[in-house]
């Protein structure tokens, strides 16, 4: 069972470079999320999507863009990476109809280092 798959799992960037993190889920979930996790800061929501073609800002959206062109995929882009974006990024998904009481299914994380 694949569940939520994130690509790549590790990446090192130089300041100013761009990259895209890909999240794919095979559970037909409507809701998808991107979080970042930093030591002592917990999980913070970057952007989320409540359906194909829709996206919304979370708590810390600056410096990131997202797209949800297909229901199963949620892309997180960094146009000009900064050292402050060094973090572990987690994608998650949730089925429709259960709002906040539904279970979030997480990927294994993508560790990004910006030099």
């Amino acid at each position, binding site marked *: 069972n694949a569940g*939520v798959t994130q690509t790549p799992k590790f990446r090192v960037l130089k300041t100013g470079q761009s990259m895209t993190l890909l999240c794919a889920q095979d559970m037909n979930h409507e*809701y998808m*999320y991107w*979080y970042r996790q930093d030591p*002592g*800061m*917990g*999980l*913070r*929501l970057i952007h*989320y999507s*409540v359906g194909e073609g829709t996206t*919304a800002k*979370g*708590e810390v959206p600056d410096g990131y863009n997202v797209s949800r062109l297909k229901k199963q995929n949620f892309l997180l882009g960094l146009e000009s990476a900064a050292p402050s974006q060094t973090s572990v990024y*987690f994608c*998650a998904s949730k089925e429709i109809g259960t*709002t*906040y*009481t539904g*279970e*979030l299914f*997480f*990927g*294994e*994380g993508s560790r990004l280092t910006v030099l």
Partner: protein
Amino acid sequence: TQLLEQSPQFLSIQEGENLTVYCNSSSVFSSLQWYRQEPGEGPVLLVTVVTGGEVKKLKRLTFQFGDARKDSSLHITAAQPGDTGLYLCAVGSGAGSYQLTFGKGTKLSVIP
């Protein structure tokens, strides 16, 4: 202001000991979730509590939702090394509550 305050931030105990970790807020919630995250992995849902005063048990883990639905606790009986991990509480927030906000977590180490 942090929506959810978790305490303690770190906890290191010997195998076999009991422990309780807390998730507190000044806001009232309709439901609250607990997740456990092991090193190198994503969080995994342990339980959802929805009713004030509710108690749920998952083997050696006991979860309680406060009567006023502002706080929750997680009690582990006879901790084992396999309980080691980061314990996170989470609640719905924002318009439509599609957003889930997490506490900063309690990092538990159980020493054999």
